[in-house]
């Protein structure tokens, strides 16, 4: 006995709408990846992958162009590394303070303020790095050039502290009280409990926080475009000017490079590289989370 009631029809329609909205996000993602692959394919027809990966210069707009992605990758890794050196320890300390030490009232004040830090437009951070932090750093480091990797790296680190701390804190708060009590009952102090028991217990969540931080820093565009300069420099020296993958894409997108040329397609090759790097970190994060899944 089958009967189509208006109620059932409505259910079907709602289901279809929900399915379509889920599908649309997948379609968008797939088409982005497709265009990225398609245009990169065009690029790699003219430039060999080997040159792309081994050439030490990135000068695609010169009369005698060179297409070595390494300087851009290095610039990205350098600024990201500096950002992480700032954000990871500070983010963890903030999370430990908020989850283990801060009285309820203080937490209620600090958390929204931290989240405000994440709401500041990145262009503001960029100019903050260029016009405020760099001159200050130059007083201590006379060799520091006006555009450099250090200053935007540090600022990006500050920028991603809220991401790291808020996800880490959620993970720490979720550690059940009886695990902490087990540590206190052994005569441990608050500090020992936080670092020896709570942080390891929350490890998978903290690892996820790191990955979010890394992905944010790799993909960050504005700060590095403004304050790191535009020199694709194969260097690990944070005092020099570097160009990141994202900053390069901005630079070329803004200029008047004609569509369809190999110069234009460099954007997609750089974008592809960026995509693969972020994807790699996300896979590592996913794997970490699965591997060190808590038992609670």
């Amino acid at each position, binding site marked *: 006995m089958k009967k189509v009631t208006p109620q059932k029809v409505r259910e079907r329609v709602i289901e279809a709408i929900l399915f379509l909205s889920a599908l649309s996000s997948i379609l968008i993602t797939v088409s982005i990846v497709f265009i990225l692959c398609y245009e990169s394919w065009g690029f790699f027809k003219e430039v060999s992958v080997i040159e792309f990966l081994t050439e030490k210069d990135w000068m695609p707009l010169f009369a005698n162009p060179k297409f070595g992605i390494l300087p851009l990758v290095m610039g990205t890794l350098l600024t990201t590394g500096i950002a992480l050196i700032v954000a990871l320890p500070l983010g963890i300390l903030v999370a430990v303070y908020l989850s283990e030490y801060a009285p309820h009232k203080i937490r209620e004040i600090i958390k929204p303020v931290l989240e405000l830090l994440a709401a500041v437009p990145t262009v503001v951070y960029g100019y903050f790095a260029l016009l405020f932090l760099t001159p200050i750093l130059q007083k201590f480091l006379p060799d520091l050039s006006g555009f450099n990797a250090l200053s935007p790296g540090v600022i990006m680190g500050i920028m991603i502290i809220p991401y790291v701390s808020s996800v880490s804190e959620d993970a720490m708060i979720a550690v059940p009280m009886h695990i*902490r009590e087990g540590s*206190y009952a*052994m*005569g*441990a*102090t608050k500090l020992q409990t936080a670092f020896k028991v709570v942080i390891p217990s929350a490890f998978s969540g903290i690892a996820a926080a790191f990955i979010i931080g890394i992905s944010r820093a790799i993909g960050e565009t504005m700060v590095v475009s403004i304050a790191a300069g535009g020199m694709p420099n194969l260097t690990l020296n944070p005092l020099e000017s570097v160009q990141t993958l994202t900053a390069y894409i901005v630079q070329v997108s803004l200029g008047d490079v004609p569509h369809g040329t190999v110069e234009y397609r460099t954007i997609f090759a750089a974008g592809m590289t960026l995509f693969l790097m972020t994807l790699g970190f996300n896979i590592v994060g996913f794997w970490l989370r699965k591997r060190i899944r808590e*038992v609670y």
Partner: protein
Amino acid sequence: MSAVTSKDLKAEAKGLNFFYGSVHALKNISLPIERRKVTALIGPSGCGKTTFLRCFNRMHDLYPHNRYEGEILLYPDNVNIISPEIDPIEVRMQISMVFQKPNPFPKTIYENVAYGLRVRGTRKKQVIDERVEKSLRGAALWEEVKDRLHNLAFDLSGGQQQRLCIARALATDPRILLFDEPTSALDPIATSKIEELIIELKNEVTIIIVTHNMQQAARVSDYTSFMYIGEIIEYDRTDKIFTAPSSKLTEDYITGRFG
């Protein structure tokens, strides 16, 4: 309360009152704790037996608005361990606890047992190695884990995890070992292993155990205290409590008329 005459006391509660904020949870409790014996605290849910147990290692200090009054004296030093002048960490260094649910840390079996020593700043590997083995033997777990000391503690079964927690508590050579319903999360076989262990351990350490299970109290303890709504109704030798209790309330509880 009938008198139990013994000069061999490890601890003694005298006129102990405890407050959760404005809730008067323990009312004028006095109780001797015999050295190297098992003292069981029984009573219906909410009677305050766990609250009382947690006074002995100052667990209540972890949460705000809790207040003790009176004394719990630790012998032979004659120190009132609930006095505000005494650092709770000092107390916990000497009085260990095993919890209701096994709560191993996310570390290896070895590091779980070594935790108390590391917290106390012990560095020498040889000392720690010896202690870990001795404690695991003491908790009847050594034979099962000696080949995988460096595996994560979560790989163990629930009963093994609880014995690991006992080993962890033993490693620091405590003067009193507190058990808070240690078998309530375990199956009957794991439970009987823990019970055997408790009976063996009293040769070395004074034990206080909170239990919901009256048969358990009868099996493992030498002395039993029956609590009801924050008070101690009766305290005596376990065999006496279970065969000829002097209070009607105790009798009703142990015969299952309420609780």
